[in-house]
């Protein structure tokens, strides 16, 4: 079902009119209410009147995560605190957390885009949705919750974790849909197997997965092990949270709610806009947000945009599924390596569990990459030569994909930490050493 036929199926021409008008309002809002943007625009000799439409967007400066941190906590808010009715924060694994705020209208937009997303994933009033995103400061839990309520879905606000209870409810409630991170989905699949529950006996038909980059092979793995359709949802708290874009049942790119969030693709090195179809860094300008409007926010996610209408009937621009972030990228001996490449290789070999950990280190001024892979029963051999053969096979496959030397280490099952939120895939010891020196 298409939740908002008007905006989701609008002609490109009409969409541009909506975007032009909303961009003008947003630029005025930030110029008059946010000192950070006013100063930046003045430094470039820009006034709100200079921005008449989308074609003027490249004149405006970028916003980065560092800008949010520098203006911690509320420095970029464009409205007095009396109008702010909710605060969320993104995980502050490096330095300070990023704080975002919402007015009542912002919360409504958030619910609107999530309702559109759930509809696109085939979820409706008759569904029971087990929302296994963390409730709290993370936008995933409450964001999905409010959108599901708007849509009229029965929501089970179970939050992340408590995996045995998740399974119990899946069985007892006849849950038909779940929202969770892809890495947690695999953990859930393992738990089902351990508890002897056959997913064929569950009513679960669809999962909505987001909050971390995941590959096509991981999607196939999840679909097979949970016997569901796995739909990708994309979002980031700075822009609003999950629901910025969503896959429809075609599973061929994620529809961006572009009447609210205008996407651009830039070359991350030169920062120049790239033409449609070319891969680069995704940049968003919010068009309707009140509390935290952001101009040309650099997401660090790498993707391409496709403006062709989709078979589902929606005309909104689609972004390709994100499988890497420009800041996930490791540079090992000068070679660019994405954790998602390792994931693809492991899943395609079909020889190991999808739990892995990259350990990057520097020994005698030389970068090293070690990949820990769990030995599970399917690949297990009672002979040393069998395991040595497996190690060699994985090493060769990784080396031919990554073009660097890799040391593969087999570890016991369940020894790589499972995550109930975002998975940790990389330990870069080079950074730890720099921080301590």
């Amino acid at each position, binding site marked *: 079902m298409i939740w908002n036929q008007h905006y989701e199926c609008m002609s490109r021409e009409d969409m541009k009119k909506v975007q032009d008008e909303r961009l003008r309002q947003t630029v005025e809002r930030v110029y008059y209410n946010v000192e950070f943007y006013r100063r930046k625009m003045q430094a470039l000799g820009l006034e709100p009147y200079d921005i008449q439409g989308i074609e003027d967007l490249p004149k405006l400066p970028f916003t980065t995560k560092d800008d949010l941190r520098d203006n911690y906590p509320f420095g970029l808010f464009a409205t007095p605190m009396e109008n702010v009715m909710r605060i969320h924060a993104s995980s502050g694994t490096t330095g300070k957390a990023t704080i975002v705020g919402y007015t009542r209208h912002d919360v409504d937009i958030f619910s609107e885009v999530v309702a559109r997303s759930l509809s696109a994933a085939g979820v409706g009033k008759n569904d029971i949705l087990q929302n296994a995103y963390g409730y709290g400061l993370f936008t995933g839990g409450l964001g999905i919750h409010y959108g599901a309520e708007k849509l009229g879905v029965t929501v089970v606000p179970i939050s992340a974790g408590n995996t045995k209870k998740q399974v119990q409810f899946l069985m007892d409630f006849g849950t038909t849909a779940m929202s969770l991170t892809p890495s947690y989905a695999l953990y859930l699949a393992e738990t089902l197997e351990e508890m002897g529950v056959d997913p064929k006996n569950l009513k679960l038909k669809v999962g909505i997965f987001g909050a971390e980059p995941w590959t096509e092979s991981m999607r196939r793995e999840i679909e097979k092990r949970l016997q569901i359709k796995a739909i990708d949802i994309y979002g980031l708290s700075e822009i609003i949270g999950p629901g910025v874009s969503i896959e429809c049942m075609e599973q061929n790119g994620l529809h961006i709610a572009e009447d609210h969030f205008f996407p651009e693709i830039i070359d991350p090195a030169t920062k120049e806009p790239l033409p449609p179809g070319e891969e680069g860094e995704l940049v968003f300008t919010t068009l309707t947000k009140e509390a935290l409007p952001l101009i040309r926010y650099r997401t660090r996610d790498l993707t391409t945009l496709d403006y062709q209408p989709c078979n589902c009937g929606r005309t909104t621009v689609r972004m390709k599924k994100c499988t890497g972030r420009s800041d996930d990228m490791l540079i090992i001996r000068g070679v660019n390596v994405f954790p998602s490449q390792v994931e693809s290789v492991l899943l395609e070999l079909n020889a190991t569990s999808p739990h892995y950990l990259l350990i990057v280190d520097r020994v005698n001024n030389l970068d090293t990459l070690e990949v820990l892979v769990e030995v599970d*029963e399917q690949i*297990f051999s*009672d002979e040393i030569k069998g*395991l*040595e053969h497996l190690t060699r096979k994985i090493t060769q496959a990784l080396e031919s994909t990554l073009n660097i030397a890799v040391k593969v*280490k*087999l570890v*016991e099952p*369940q020894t790589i930490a499972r995550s109930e939120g975002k998975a940790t895939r990389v330990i870069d010891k080079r950074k730890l050493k720099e921080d301590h020196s």
Partner: protein
Amino acid sequence: MIIKQLTVFLENKSGRLSEVTRVLGENNINISALSIADTSEYGLLRLIVSDGEKATDLLKRNGFSVNLTDVICLNVKHTPGTLHDAIKTLSNGGIDIEYMYAYAVGDNAAVIMKVSDAKEAIYILTQNNIDLLRSDEMA
């Protein structure tokens, strides 16, 4: 005559072997034979126990990778030349030995072997009057 052997993957970390023996001991499972094949990073613990299915289940639930393999156990006289006769019999019959471990107590010796074809090996050995142990005789 086929005996179920458990193989457990162990990382070279202190306490892993004792975790296996703890789980088995606490659940009243007796170990009849044991060997460890080691590499620089991990080891393979091979065990013959009183209840192979139960032990496999218990160890899996305790987070170990375990598999059950068919092996055979020869019962030979503890005298010079008897092991040689048995191995020669297998080799003449075209059977490869993947690995083996043995123990001798008193008059007899038990030799546990993983071979390329367990059924064929049992046939050849029986034809040549070499005694094999059944699993109930192991425990």
